[in-house]
């Protein structure tokens, strides 16, 4: 199955996507990640104002079968969370890149090791085989 990987986003090895605009960024999970999780039934997000380092777990996404944490692709302070996805977790399955963003952050420092859409597609291909 081919997964969507919009070219204007960057990706982390833990399957989050990030859109960086100036010193702000929006974070969600990839199409591959939502498919691997299955039907999402529960989303837990941090409080606005919380700060995280790169790689910190900032929330959790749960299906009937399992709980998975989501990690910060870059360090920063949470400035907004998406209530729509908390109230309707299934949005993560239907529109992982649009309506189902998870948090917006103020980026703390220089951005580390992120992948382009092309690099992320190769990465996903490798873990599938």
């Amino acid at each position: 199955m081919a997964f969507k990987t919009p070219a204007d986003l960057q990706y982390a090895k833990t399957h989050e996507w990030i859109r960086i605009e100036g010193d702000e960024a929006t974070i969600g999970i990839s199409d591959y990640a939502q498919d691997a999780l299955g039907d999402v039934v529960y989303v837990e997000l941090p409080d606005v104002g919380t700060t995280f380092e790169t790689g910190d777990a900032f929330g959790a996404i749960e299906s009937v079968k399992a709980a998975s944490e989501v990690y910060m692709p870059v360090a920063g302070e949470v400035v907004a969370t998406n209530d729509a996805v908390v109230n309707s977790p299934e949005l993560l399955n239907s529109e992982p890149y649009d309506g189902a963003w998870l948090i917006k952050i103020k980026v703390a420092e220089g951005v580390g090791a992120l992948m382009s859409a092309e690099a992320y597609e190769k990465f996903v291909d490798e873990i599938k085989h």
Partner: protein
Amino acid sequence: MSTSATLKRTPLFDQHVALGARMVEFGGWEMPVQYSGIVDEHNAVRGAAGLFDISHMGEFEVKGPDALAFLQHVCTQDIAAIGEGMANYSLLCRPDGGIVDDIFVYNLPDGYLVVVNASNIDKDFAWMLDNLHGFNVELTNISDHASMLALQGPAAEGILAQAAGPELAALPFHGVATGMLLGDIPGIVARTGYTGEDGFELFIDDDNAARLWDGLLALGRAAGLKPAGLGARDSLRFEACLPLYGHEIADDINPYEAKLGWAVKLDKGSDFVGRATLAQIKQQGVARKLAGFELTERGIARGGYELRDAAGARIGEVSTGMPAPSLGKNLGLGLVPAALATEGSELSVVVRDRPVRARVVKTPFYKPRYKK
């Protein structure tokens, strides 16, 4: 995970892949965890029917003049009360009362068939061999060439009637019989299951598994039959509070703690392994007991999460927990101090370092809809 080379596959592996299943490791087997999605498959079983490949389960034949006496010796259940053509749930217990496994015993014209958990096949077989001394019994592990399908849900009876005729579809609850499936596949049909719904379990030889699987799916499609994986099997059995080995029951958990005292027949008229200890435990009462609870704050309990009492002290851990698809609640099971295993007790479940409040509720969460 690239361990698939060492995992066992059932004869239906190609069918699962062709149906788009996601394959996972379970008890040393590469099994389908889901096809269309756990919730969709769960709902199909509650509302229509689901077909499960459970060929990973173990099957032992117990035959010979002392077959009954031997099973009475290793089982807690009264096997003599299982008439020919009937089946029942039982436990194998250790001398200290701990549960070796939970099993199903089927009484067939030519002997008994015992179904054991996939992860316990070797342990159970060795256990039976160890206890075989003095009995004239032919004990055979046929797991390697026996396949098993479960056809479960309110539409299962109608689909089985098409596949095997009205006689087998009219088996009583826990009835078992041999017969022909799809006209020419010899098999054993039993009205048993692990979902809390009416349904059947079908035993056939490995060589016929693919043809029966494909044939049943085609026959049942109009009635809403869907292939269902281990994910739905777990959520269905969890709602009905049917125990899963390694979670609600284990070598160091006794039947009274697991609320399975009904499967221990101390007065069945013959001694059995564990009887003396179990009689003592029953008389003294247990210090901890399985409880079902509902989370009353936002959060989902998962197996292994810590349980605390209202004062914040650690009291145990969750054995199974998940959002229950048919009930719309976040529920869990776990062993807790007996005094707290009563309806209305307040507990908390530690979810990612945060205590989330929960309340003990009645079990089973979902009342089974067996056809009795």
